[in-house]
């Protein structure tokens, strides 16, 4: 097959854009230094960055178009390799690959990425770091593309840590405030914990397969299983890589960085912390699905972690007052859903939910950004209310996102969520337990989503009307909202449930990728539910949506009744009724603060003990015993250092004489 060298252009365009925007940033700084009011060439950055994204998106579409023209089993485009590390005995070659799996993520990354770039041009307007922002954002996209297109696990790791870096830079974008910089640092460090597992996992894979090439690893698993050996190492490798995924995809126990990551500008939250980067872990597992399929124990473990994450984060979202806080915990919870799918071996369902979630959560974050923008940086929902009259476009589109997230029948979120739950139900056994937690989380999701909608857009206007004048956002911001709203509503067509007798486009498209994993895990095709059970589950989902969306909404706002101010009151009632529980939920089950007091603080203390007690007293103490002698001769030393070369020469001479004397003594024997 001829190499498709142009695939390198897909990540290279945003990389180039990033460099250009960086140059524009420094030109702007220079212009501003000469004249404080000068705008400089900074505003050009949004054009450069958007152009780079548009080209990248166009090329991605071209790649997919080429794939569709091929036989389904042979759908693959590959560039010539970059010989990254070669040591004679070991080498890492990285090429850019577009296959059915990476093609889907390409569309999400460049497509939604482009929309968020367009939005950002409006959102970040007037920010002194305008060009810098686009430089980081483009760099992020380049790294993310590297992550999903790389043929090698180590090439993937370049993207993996690259997106982590951009996340760090963008969370801390407003670093002068202090706390965003701390949040960025936390994100990077927590991710590094996962990365340490990832690195060790890659060593095991090298030992097992003698390669880091992703397709070769995938192809090698079946043979290794047949030989019956090394099942422990396979399991360990899968477990360690999942450890890496836990960090990047914010699963228990490493999810604590994501809520803090909301310190970044809102488009960043939409792109990085909802639509793309945080789903890398899901991509990794699907990419290596044969490896994970070979270790059912690991899959079950993933299921338990995912269920715990989905539930804990979902309940935490119920009590947040910060608009972005709700969305952050919701994202963690939804990522848990994706891993729940993976645990059941529903690889394509996890990718399906990844895509629909990218649609509706990006939409919700951008909508939240529009609200925050219109409210002059206010994020506390208790200080909002009634905004639907002031920003109707934002309201309508936000509603679409909320319906999709909370599982309104037949909208994208409903269908993809149903698929994951149905698969767990079909697996039976312990998966019934996972299914039950998933259903409970669906109820929780409906509740917190509509609580959020009610507090933000309905009820009395609780802001200071003299100071705050909510306004609708400009066209560059509302246009992406409408496009995403369309996708969030209609995204379900990618995977129409079997009861409707239509082709499941996504499952079909991903078949070549998921087949090896399915063969190992199920010995062929995954189990199917009877139509009756399917209908029942769909019905249950519908019921839950209406019941809990109603509960979340009604309890708070009394639809459309102006003058009612019950939202905050409800919160206060709950807080008064169950102060312990409510506080616990607001604090996300106090997990983060537990880490701080049980891990971070002791480690800091340990560092202090090492630096002061061990190093200065114990280690240096021994040395200083010798130095005591030296202190007495300090006077002489001072003379020596002032006396220059001559006295040092004396020392050396004495040494030489000693050497010679020893030598002669030796020679005399």
């Amino acid at each position, binding site marked *: 097959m001829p190499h498709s060298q142009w695939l390198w252009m897909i990540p290279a365009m945003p990389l180039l854009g990033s460099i250009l925007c960086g140059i524009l940033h420094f030109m702007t*700084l220079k212009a501003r230094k000469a004249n404080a009011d000068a705008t400089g060439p900074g505003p050009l950055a949004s054009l450069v960055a958007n152009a780079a994204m548009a080209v990248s998106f166009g090329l991605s579409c071209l790649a997919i178009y080429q794939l569709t023209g091929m036989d389904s089993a042979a759908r693959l485009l590959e560039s010539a390799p970059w*010989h*990254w*590390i*070669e*040591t*004679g*005995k*070991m*080498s*890492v*070659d990285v090429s850019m690959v577009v296959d059915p799996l990476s093609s889907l993520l390409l569309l999400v990354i460049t497509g939604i990425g482009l929309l968020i770039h367009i939005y950002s041009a409006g959102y970040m307007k007037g920010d002194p770091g305008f060009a810098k922002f686009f430089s980081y954002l483009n760099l992020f996209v380049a790294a993310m593309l590297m992550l999903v297109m790389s043929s090698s696990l*180590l090439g993937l790791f370049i993207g*993996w*840590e*690259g997106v982590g870096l951009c996340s*760090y830079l963008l969370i*801390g974008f407003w670093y*002068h405030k*202090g706390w965003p*910089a*701390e949040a960025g*640092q936390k994100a*990077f*460090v927590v991710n590094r*914990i996962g*990365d*340490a597992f990832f*690195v*060790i996992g890659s060593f095991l894979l*090298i*030992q*097992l397969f*003698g390669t880091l*090439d992703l397709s070769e690893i995938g192809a090698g698993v079946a043979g290794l299983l047949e030989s019956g*050996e*090394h099942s422990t*190492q396979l399991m360990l490798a899968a477990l360690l890589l999942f450890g890496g995924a836990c960090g990047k995809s914010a699963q228990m126990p490493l999810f604590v960085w994501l809520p803090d990551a909301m310190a970044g500008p809102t488009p960043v939250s939409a792109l990085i912390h909802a639509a793309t980067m945080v789903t890398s872990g899901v991509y990794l597992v699907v990419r290596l699905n044969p490896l994970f399929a070979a270790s059912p124990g690991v899959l079950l473990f993933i299921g338990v972690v995912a269920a715990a994450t989905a539930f804990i984060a979902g309940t935490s979202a119920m009590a947040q007052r910060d608009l972005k806080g709700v969305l952050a915990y919701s994202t963690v919870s939804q990522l848990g859903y994706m891993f729940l799918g993976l645990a059941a071996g529903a690889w394509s369902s996890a990718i399906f939910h990844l895509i629909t979630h990218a649609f509706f959560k990006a939409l919700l974050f951008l909508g939240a950004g529009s609200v925050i923008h219109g409210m002059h940086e206010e994020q506390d929902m208790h200080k909002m209310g009634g905004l639907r009259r002031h920003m109707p476009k934002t309201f309508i589109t936000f509603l679409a996102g909320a319906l999709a997230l909370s599982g309104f029948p037949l909208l994208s979120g409903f269908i993809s969520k149903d698929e994951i739950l149905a698969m767990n139900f079909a697996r039976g056994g312990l998966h019934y337990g996972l299914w039950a937690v998933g259903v409970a989380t669906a109820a929780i999701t409906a509740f917190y989503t509509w609580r959020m909608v009610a507090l933000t857009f309905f009820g009395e206007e609780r802001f200071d009307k003299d100071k705050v004048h909510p306004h609708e956002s400009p066209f560059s911001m509302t246009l992406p909202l409408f496009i995403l709203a369309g996708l969030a509503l209609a995204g379900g067509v990618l995977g129409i449930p079997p009861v409707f007798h239509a082709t499941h486009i996504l499952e079909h498209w991903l078949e070549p990728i998921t087949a090896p994993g399915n063969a190992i895990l199920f010995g062929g095709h995954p189990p199917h539910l009877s139509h009756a059970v399917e209908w029942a589950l769909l019905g249950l989902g519908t019921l839950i949506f209406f019941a809990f969306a109603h509960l979340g909404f009604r309890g708070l706002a009394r639809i459309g009744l102006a003058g009612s101010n019950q939202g905050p009151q409800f919160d206060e009632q709950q807080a008064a009724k169950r102060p312990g529980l409510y506080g616990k939920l607001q604090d996300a089950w106090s997990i983060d603060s537990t880490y701080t007091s049980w891990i971070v603080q002791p*480690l800091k203390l*340990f*560092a202090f003990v090492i*630096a*002061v007690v061990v*190093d200065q007293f114990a280690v*240096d103490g021994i*040395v200083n015993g*010798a*130095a005591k002698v*030296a202190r007495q001769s*300090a006077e002489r*030393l*001072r003379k020596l*250092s002032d006396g220059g070369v001559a006295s*040092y020469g004396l020392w*050396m001479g004495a040494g030489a004489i000693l*050497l010679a004397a020893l*030598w*002669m003594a*030796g*020679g005399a024997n």
Partner: protein
Amino acid sequence: MDGRRSELVLTAITFLPLVAAILIAFTPKKAEALQRGLALLMSLIVAGLGIALYIGFDGASAAAQQVVDVAWFNLPGKNGDIPVHFKFGVDGISILLVTLTTVLMPVVVLSTKVHIDKRVKEFMIWLLLMETGILGVFLSLDLILFYFFWELSLIPLYFILGIWGGERRLYAAMKFFLYTVAGSLLMMLGVIWLVWQTGSTDLVALMDMTSGLTASEQTWIFASFALSFAIKVPVLPFHTWLADAHTEAPTSGSVLLAGVLLKMGTYGLIRFGIGLFPAAALAASPVFMALGAIGIVYGAFLAWAQTDIKRLVACSSVSHLGFVVMGMFALTAEGMRGSVLQMINHGLSTGLLFLLIGMIYERRHTRDFEQYGGIASVMPVFALFFVFSMLSSVGLPSLNGFVGEYLILLGTFNASPLWAMVGVTGIIFGAVYLLMCTRRLLFGPVTVAANNKLEDLNGREISLMLPLVVLCLWIGVAPTPFINKTAGSIDAILERVDAVRPTQSAGLLPASTPTQTSSEGAEVR
């Protein structure tokens, strides 16, 4: 290159700095511009030669190249006279370090413009003398010659510390002196014993002779060499001189110390420890891997607790050099390649960090974190370079540090999963202290009024860092040419280790793995 010219290359590289030092000695005391200019010019010429040497070097060959060999004098030995030669040569273990030394020197000379404002003439003389000493250490193929240059390279730093250092310079110089003397004495014992027993000072000849020594002799001589090099590196628990020396040294001294002087220790461990005594090194490998791994974690915690920026970076060296020591004593192909590469990487990234800290120190005259914060708002170009250097140090893939660390950890994992797992926590704690350092220096609001008026980096400062920045990127993206330069020599050393290795592979894992071999590591594509 024909024979005559090639003989000249190594001699010229080593002694041109000495020539410059002598020239400067004859300049009038006040002619500072002339002294600086001479030093810069000569170090640039030497850097050019160093780069030419690197380009012409054949990495596939294990033999020493560009050899210069002249009979020097005779020592009395138990079986007749022992001829001492003036013998220079460069091989895969030394080539990268030689080139790095020559490239780093103009950078260091340029960096002294502000912070060396007294006794410029003397300073330049010491600096150039040090270059001759360091290059001699890396190039000597004769034990006595090596020892001579070893001593020669240490004297200048002692004076640089003692005269141009910070407030506690005398304490730091004293400590450095004591450690150095202790290490030198130990090495001298080893040298005398080895030469006495074998009747040769030629390193190449000695390689074949050491196996003739008794096992206990090998162990003891190895121990004396290894200990003296371990002090130099420094390996835990001999590290406490380093933090003081780094903290008190002027920027240029710190850069050279981190960049190449410490590498004399790691270089010596490979060349004299593992190269001359493979059996003893094999026996000691668990101990050194453990010391390296513990050093990684210990150094990271040490750095975390510092309140002085420069001291933090100094302590980070303990952690980074732990990687180097762990990797080489894994005695695997990946581990040792990574280790040799990481010597260069550490020189680049830590060199950059010391340069940057020097630049901010020249503006604010404090190294206390409390005095900083929000510098990124005032000095954006400085912030860009600092974050870049920090990321290189933290081991971000696509920058230099990652390649070395990954190969080291992989090589160690193949030899001892346990120590690899201890070492891998270094990539977490490394992020902890380096990001903390970055945040406290660059981010947050500007809290100290004096920081509001800081001037951003000027053209000289930017341009002197650029070569190092380019190298960081280059090694990160295309490390293969650099690694290949070292391949022949490393494989030769490992062959010697494998020859004495009992046939079994160690590991924590329950089953032995299919592609794993003793030193070959895994075959990867």
